[in-house]
């Protein structure tokens, strides 16, 4: 229940209830006001049951009772009526059209009455304001007129409307306007908070995760924020777990590789010691075989480790823009003596590429080149030829590695090449490059390709 009162729904319902109450209160206030007005502005004519009809009737009746018309009689008659109707104006026009007597506040009455003036007076007063009654007397006596502002005979409500109508309409409009403004502000605030929330949700921490949002209110939006924070928290924990797992995995692989290499080093130490005891050609050949196996083993462990990390996408990658031709040339400088020692014919021809700057991780590039060259070194003892070239075409730049071995599919001599090639494949893809390998009886070509940006 407490939560309900904190909710936006409750707030809006409160708003509506207040608005409806306000209208009701306004109506009641107007009612009371009118009632009070009626009390104050007592309309005694209506109270006494006097309306236009009774006035008309009585005026005619009184006029017919008047005898021996003289100014005095008329004055008495007017005075009597004036007592009853203080707001009224009365006047007498005699048979010859002269204004003989007048009582009341209306001064706008002609002193001489022609037929035309009389007709226009009647016409203007018919159903008009003030309410006018004309009573004809004997021909020579003319007529007497009674007029009273209609206002004096009106209902109080009408008077209220006449007096305060504008204020009432403005008041009602203000209430409606107030309701609209308050509603607008209410929704505007909700909208603002939602937009704020959206913005806050889009902010990312240095680790790429969203940040927690400060929860200020406990309404629906507040609950949403809370849930979002919960999610962020879970996400962060999950990321931490993932990083921890990643770390453990890397550590495990690194340790495993270390633990495998240590006995291998001892093996190398023993074989080296034995190799120094020169015991003839057979002996030396066996030692050489042992050496080769140790090297192979070392390479396999290295590849296995890289492969495991690469397949789990855990191999560290740090891209930067490098001059690839220069980088490859410097890297080949370290390989040159190795091929030289094995008696290879070496042909290096690196020309500037269409775009020599590649956005790659140099460690990865070295690793790719190492794997390609290791394969050539190990598997093409027959051809003893290695060639590294650059090639630029309309669609791509490429590095070419050629050998004159008897092809990659031939013989078991290529055992262990598979994982090396898989590593090349994964790394090339990881660097957004492409590669091709063509192998025949006459040799193998490995092409590392970078397509031009379209």
């Amino acid at each position, binding site marked *: 229940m407490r939560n309900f009162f904190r909710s936006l729904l409750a707030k809006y319902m409160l708003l509506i209830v207040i608005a409806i109450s306000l209208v009701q209160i306004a109506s009641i206030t107007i009612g009371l006001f009118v009632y009070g007005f009626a009390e104050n502005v007592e309309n005694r004519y209506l109270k006494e049951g006097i309306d236009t009809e009774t006035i008309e009737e009585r005026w005619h009746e009184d006029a017919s009772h008047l005898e021996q018309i003289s100014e005095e009689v008329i004055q008495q008659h007017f005075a009597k009526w004036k007592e009853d109707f203080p707001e009224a104006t009365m006047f007498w026009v005699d048979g010859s059209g002269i204004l003989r007597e007048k009582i009341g506040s209306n001064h706008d009455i002609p002193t001489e009455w022609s037929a035309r003036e009389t007709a226009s007076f009647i016409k203007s007063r018919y159903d008009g304001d003030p309410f006018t009654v004309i009573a004809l007397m004997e021909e020579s006596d003319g007529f007497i007129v009674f007029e009273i502002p209609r206002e004096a005979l009106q209902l109080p409500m009408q008077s209220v409307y006449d007096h305060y109508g504008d204020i009432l309409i403005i008041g009602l409009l203000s209430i409606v306007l107030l309701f609209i403004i308050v509603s607008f502000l209410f929704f505007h605030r909700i909208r603002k908070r939602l937009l704020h929330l959206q913005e806050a949700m889009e902010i990312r921490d240095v680790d790429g995760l969203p940040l927690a949002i400060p929860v200020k209110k406990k309404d629906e939006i507040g609950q949403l924020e809370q849930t979002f924070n919960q999610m962020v928290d879970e996400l962060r924990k999950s990321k931490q777990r993932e990083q921890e797992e990643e770390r453990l995995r890397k550590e495990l692989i*690194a340790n495993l590789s270390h633990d495998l290499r240590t006995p291998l080093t001892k093996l190398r130490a023993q074989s*080296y010691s034995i190799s120094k005891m020169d015991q003839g050609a057979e002996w030396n050949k066996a030692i050489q075989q042992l050496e080769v196996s140790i090297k192979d083993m070392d390479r396999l462990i290295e590849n296995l480790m890289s492969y495991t990390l690469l397949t789990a996408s855990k191999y560290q990658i740090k891209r930067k823009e490098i001059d690839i031709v220069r980088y490859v040339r410097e890297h080949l400088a370290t390989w040159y003596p190795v091929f030289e020692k094995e008696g290879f014919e070496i042909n290096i021809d690196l020309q500037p590429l269409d775009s020599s700057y590649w956005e790659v991780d140099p460690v990865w590039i070295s690793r790719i080149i190492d794997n390609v060259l290791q394969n050539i070194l190990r598997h093409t003892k027959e051809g003893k030829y290695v060639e590294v070239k650059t090639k630029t075409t309309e669609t791509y730049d490429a590095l070419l590695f050629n050998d004159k071995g008897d092809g990659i599919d031939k013989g078991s001599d290529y055992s262990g090449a598979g994982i090396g090639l898989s590593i090349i494949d994964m790394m090339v893809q990881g660097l957004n490059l492409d590669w091709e390998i063509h192998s025949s009886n006459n040799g193998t070509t490995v092409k590392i390709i970078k397509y031009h940006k379209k």
Partner: protein
Amino acid sequence: MVHILYIEDDKEIGHWVSTDLTERGYKITWLQSGENMESYLTSIDLAILDVMLPGLDGFSLGKRLKKSAPDIPIIMLSARTAVEDRLEGLRFADDYVTKPFHPDELAARIEVLLRRFQRHDEVLEIKHLQIYPKDMRIINKNNEEEILLTGKQYHLFQYFIRHLNQILTKEQLYEGIWGESYIEGDKTLMVHIRYLREKIEENPSVPTVIETIRGIGYRVKQ
């Protein structure tokens, strides 16, 4: 005699490496942990450190060593081959050799570093030349006369001697000597190499001291 400090906890490997390096004419001090490392700092010319050690690991030892004696070259010798480990090691160490290694390879790397840090008082014999690297004196053995090099030729030859047996690209040479980045097609370096060859080669048109490695660069090999 070159004095090498070697820290390795594995007895078998430690014994093998110490024996081999002693046979190669170095004085070896082999420790099984880094505990007493500091007391040797003044007397050693080079340090070889394993990474996985009891107590402080090789990385921590190496960093300390480099801080207190920046002129002693360090070789990390480890069975940890991950890229991260190599990078971590090479932040302070001068070389990173992975196990299993061939003793010839280790010896070669030691020589490179000793030369680079000028901790050798050896006399180099390259073809018909006799070179005293410390004061860069070059004697032509054919006539026992000293060859005098000037300015850039001197720097160029010194650079080659410091990077003996390494192939250097045009970019590396130019940037190493002129201290500016190399612009493709610049002939300055070629001109200076020609002058240098005219002074030191027996037959400058068939150079033997400064080899041209086609497609890569140049090399002075012992």
